[in-house]
């Protein structure tokens, strides 16, 4: 028995934790809590509601028509409203619930943990947009059945790519803010104010009233910057010729809302002492 006690106990030749396993565990951690299940259930409800309402309007309105592209856009809405909360919670809940103690003892290399969470968030973003596309296709097919119009299957690859890209940008912004703030209410508030409330409720008014707002705000809002490049038009619908400045503006907003908070946040997570 005394020989057992003199055996070297630590085996440095063992394999480490494979990255794929870490990502799968992080995805599981997003949806294995009661809160996670509810968020998913509510989002599913939103999707069905959006589909149902769209079909109702189309069914009651002989003149109204829609295309697959339009359906895709509509279905992307419900998955972009609530699901970014997952991208926030995957980071901040570790702090609020103090599970980071366990997480960082299972994987002491915090950069790896951040990367695994990032890949998990990206997977979720793409997965949900695919689900939205499936529901969109379903809705479009039903539209062909219940209205006299023939369904139009016209979702160009470019449009689909933009929808996916925007969803990713949204999720990454939420993730980056969560890393920077490490606090659930703060991250959720900043994310929704910056990405939804201001651009939908405040900026339009300012932009309608002031020239400086029309000049400045697209530089502060990722969604506007994306839309200008994507639709080749200003907020007010005036066509523009997309040039270097517009791509520069897009890159600037992405840096402002994703790269910068993401880098600072990652640095904070690596350095901060978990208690």
């Amino acid at each position, binding site marked *: *028995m*005394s020989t*057992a*006690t*003199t*055996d*070297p*106990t*630590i*085996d*440095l*030749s*063992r*394999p*480490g*934790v*494979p990255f794929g*396993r*870490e990502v*799968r*565990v992080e995805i*599981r*951690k997003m949806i*294995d*809590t*009661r*809160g*996670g299940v509810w968020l998913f259930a509510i989002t599913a409800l939103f999707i069905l509601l959006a589909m149902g309402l769209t079909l109702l309007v189309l069914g009651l309105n002989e003149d109204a028509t829609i295309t697959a592209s339009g359906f895709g856009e509509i279905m992307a809405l419900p998955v972009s409203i609530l699901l970014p909360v997952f991208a926030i919670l995957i980071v901040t*809940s570790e702090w609020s*619930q*103090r*599970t980071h*103690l*366990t997480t*960082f*003892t*299972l*994987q*002491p*290399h915090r950069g790896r943990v951040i990367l695994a969470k990032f890949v998990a968030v990206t997977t979720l973003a793409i997965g949900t947009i695919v689900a939205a596309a499936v529901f969109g296709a379903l809705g479009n097919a039903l539209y062909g059945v219940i209205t006299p119009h023939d369904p139009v299957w016209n979702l160009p690859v470019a449009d689909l790519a933009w929808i996916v890209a925007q969803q990713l940008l949204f999720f990454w912004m939420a993730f980056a803010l969560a890393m920077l703030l490490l606090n659930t209410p703060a991250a959720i508030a900043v994310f929704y104010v910056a990405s939804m409330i201001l651009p939908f409720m405040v900026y339009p008014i300012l932009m309608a009233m002031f020239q400086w707002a029309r000049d400045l705000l697209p530089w502060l809002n990722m969604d506007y910057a994306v839309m200008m490049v994507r639709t080749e038009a200003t907020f007010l619908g005036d066509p523009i010729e997309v040039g270097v400045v517009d791509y520069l503006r897009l890159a600037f907003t992405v840096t402002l809302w994703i790269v910068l908070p993401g880098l600072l946040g990652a640095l904070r997570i690596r350095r901060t*002492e*978990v*208690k």
Partner: protein
Amino acid sequence: MIEVQNLSKSYGDFTAVDDVSFACRPGRVTGFLGPNGAGKSTAMRMIAGLTRPSKGTATIDGVEYTAIPNPATQVGVLLDASAQHGGRTGREVLTIGARMMGLPASRVDEMLALVGLTDKEAKRRVRNYSLGMRQRLGIAHALLGDPKVLILDEPANGLDPAGIHWMRRLLREYANRGGTVMLSSHLLHEIQIIADDLIVIGNGRIVASGTKEELLRVAGTRVRARDMAALESALTAAGLTFEVAGDAVTSTASPEEVGQAAADAGVALVELRESDSAGLEEMFLQLTSSNQRDVITTEGVPA
């Protein structure tokens, strides 16, 4: 073996852990005893690679925790049993750990059985767990990967007396199989039940360490006189070290030496005896009461 050498951690002016060195040997249960805020948790977090030391090193078999591949399968760590997501079930908490470590799902059932959590309890959300149940879950988590070293911060906190004895048996068997156990507590009686070796820490410094028997056997003398001032000067004159403890004086010298010193000075004694095995307890009490928060104030009736 856990080895800590000249380990320090400062936060600004405050030194939480101050040049601490100790070792926890395989086959032994080492108790890390100290009042709240003594630096126990900080030291343990440094061993587990969660807190960067200001100075010194903490290694396990000569290796830093962060350099161990898949560390949870080699070193079991429980730093805070209440640090679990309240919305997860107990079983899910263990399942995540098992997945991360690459263990079969059957391991989760084995651990639940080992710590005595029933199937029904394992399906409940951790939010609804008592502290004792959380401790059992945390210990199950620490043992999941069948590690050779265990680091447990206040694992007996919240356990009832039966639970404490259960833990003693569990850790005893674990150590008998060659495992190294380090566990902390702020309660002397808990650690007396569970540990073989003791490290006592106060205000960030190690104040005593050794086997439990050694520390509890600390010889000493308790002496009282009607004229305490005369007694104190007599002991000083004889060159004996002593401390005033309440209405008596304790000295590390033998009763014979103390009695002789008093007789030489002509001080009449009221009491002279070998102090109880309370050496450790007394030292521990002093450590605790030197903490401002614990000074007892009399809540008197206003005059």
